């Protein structure tokens, strides 16, 4: 069952220097219970895209959306502010990278979870408190009764992220958007949080949209992956296919440039030349053409269409539809 369907989503931000578009025509869908990864470097538009899904940016300034977002038979772009408030936190929850700045320093974590519960359900304070403790326990926080009364600064980074997850779960959302939730954590703590997220996905059949720059994390927990570059999805497909048989040069180079525990230390690392172009200066044709080692005149002139092959989709002129692989 399709839970979320996004079609040709554009997010435009009007600034006093003109219009920039961090999301430029993104289409995808998420099935119930699916864990999908979105990878991209800084400036690829992955965070703006995920926040557009629940229109979190609306209050940030002059934002304009084009395209379609359908969630559970609701047209998200047509919802009123009141309806949006019901959607956010209830059906779709979001957790961010920096848990400490997402928590209110003046209230105990228990208080904040109770507030989240009582915003969405009419429960007495006492019942809500009980529930909050249960959610803290569920996310693996030791002695949750004591921790209920802790202030955010008294907890470690990993514990803070667990509190954020507990808060995101109170309404048993159908979709959890996790925006770089483990980036600020140490590897051993990251492993614990990833295990928790997977456990919650199986237990609640909750779909997860996992935003990250870390390809290793994607392989660990996502069944499918989308690769973003400059506001577009340039390649997507099942995780194993993308890792074993990437079709887009950007995906290939991104995978290759990651140092691995078994890579040859005497060889230089394959690197992508240059940097991600600025949004106010998007290249003509394929947006990756300025850094692509295989770019041709066609790439620099015309934007490539999205080609599909057996569940894998790629936006690249080098893809040969008949061969089902790269042109020679």
């Amino acid at each position, binding site marked *: 069952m399709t839970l979320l369907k996004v079609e040709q989503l554009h997010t435009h931000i009007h600034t006093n220097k003109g219009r920039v578009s961090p999301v430029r025509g993104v289409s995808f869908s998420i099935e119930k219970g699916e864990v999908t990864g979105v990878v991209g*470097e*800084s400036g690829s538009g992955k965070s703006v895209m995920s926040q557009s899904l629940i229109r979190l940016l609306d209050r940030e300034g002059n934002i304009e959306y084009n395209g379609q977002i359908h969630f559970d038979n609701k047209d998200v772009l047509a919802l009123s502010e009141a309806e949006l408030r019901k959607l956010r936190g209830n059906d779709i929850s979001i957790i961010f990278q920096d848990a400490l700045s997402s928590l209110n320093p003046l209230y105990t974590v228990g208080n904040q979870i109770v507030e989240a519960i009582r915003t969405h359900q009419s429960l007495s304070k006492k019942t809500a408190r009980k529930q909050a403790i249960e959610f803290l326990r569920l996310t693996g926080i030791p002695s949750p009764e004591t921790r209920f009364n802790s202030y955010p600064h008294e907890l*470690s*980074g*990993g*514990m803070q992220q667990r509190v954020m997850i507990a808060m995101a779960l109170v309404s048993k959302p159908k979709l959890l958007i996790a925006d770089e939730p483990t980036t600020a954590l*140490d*590897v*051993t*703590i*990251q*492993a*614990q949080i990833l*295990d928790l997220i997977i456990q919650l996905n199986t237990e609640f059949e909750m779909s997860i949209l996992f935003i990250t*720059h*870390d*390809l*290793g*994390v994607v*392989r*660990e927990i996502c069944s499918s992956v989308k690769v973003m570059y400059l506001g577009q999805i340039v390649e997507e497909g099942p995780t194993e296919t993308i*890792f074993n048989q990437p079709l887009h040069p950007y995906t290939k*180079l*991104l*995978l290759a*440039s*990651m*140092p*691995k*525990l*078994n*890579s040859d*230390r005497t060889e*230089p*690392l*394959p*690197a*992508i*030349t240059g*940097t*991600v172009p600025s949004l106010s200066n998007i290249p003509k044709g394929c947006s990756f053409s300025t850094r692509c080692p295989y770019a041709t005149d066609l790439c620099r002139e015309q934007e490539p269409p999205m080609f599909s092959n057996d569940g894998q989709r790629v936006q690249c002129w080098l893809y040969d539809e008949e061969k089902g692989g790269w042109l020679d």
Partner: protein
Amino acid sequence: MKEDHQPILEIRNLSKSFTASGTLEKLSGKTKYVRAVNNVSFQLNKGEVYGLVGESGSGKSTLARTILQLTKPSSGEVLYKNQDLTALKINEMRKLRKDLQLIFQDPFSSLNPRKTVGQILEEPLRIHGVKKAAIRQEKALALLEQVGLQTEHYFRYPHEFSGGQRQRIGIARALIVDPEIAILDEPVSALDVSIQSQILNILKALQKNLNLTMLFIAHDISVVRYISDRIGVLYLGEMMEEADTDSLFAEPLHPYTQALFSSVLDGSKKERIPLKGEIPSPLAPPSGCVFHTRCPFATELCKEQKPKLREVRAGQRVACHFVK
């Protein structure tokens, strides 16, 4: 592998504690200490890259700052060219700073926004007594090229550069005085993967061409593995294991090293060794072996007695009671 095992820098039993109490506790004699680095010894050989890995709170950065005497160590010695840096006066140390350069993590806050790249690069030369402007400029332009920037960048300001380019400027600034040793504190962790590999390649090439000795500090294990000849693993301010890179990855002996390596997500599927709990507070480090609270193999002995760092194979030192 490097042929000559001439130690250029020797760190002996280095410790650093910070006071964590207010005036009231001090007056009542209940001063608390944060033990950031505890009794760490290792040496850097000429021309090698020594990697230090550890999670946040393991004392990596404090160790770097203590080696450079940016904070005074509580005890221990740092020997460089037969001198103990910890015993030097400030002006004696200042003369040696040219030889020991530091490259920082954050390329945004470590460059003066009001100076041009040329001024930033030439300042260390001026401080260290290169009087002729023409020579300074020549040197600056040569380094710009070596780190993969262009001549025209000489007149630009830091804000005109991307994170990766700024890190190149930081590297050029450190290397312009021809240091003997470069200490790099998380030099690529603020960068995207595609940029990270560009910088790692530059560092590796420069290290080789200049026969530079490097102390490379990072939490990213794959990165440290790629660049280092030898590696030390820190946990809660103590050295857990040390070996040359290939031996360490072929067979990590300390349970912490094993768990740490198994949590690395480098895109390959593998069995993870889960670690319970979190790194304990350095305000109250565990008794005995500092890792015993999270170690899956810990026994009573580990709680009571601190294991010594001892050589168990040629070049491989481990601090664990149970490694044979």
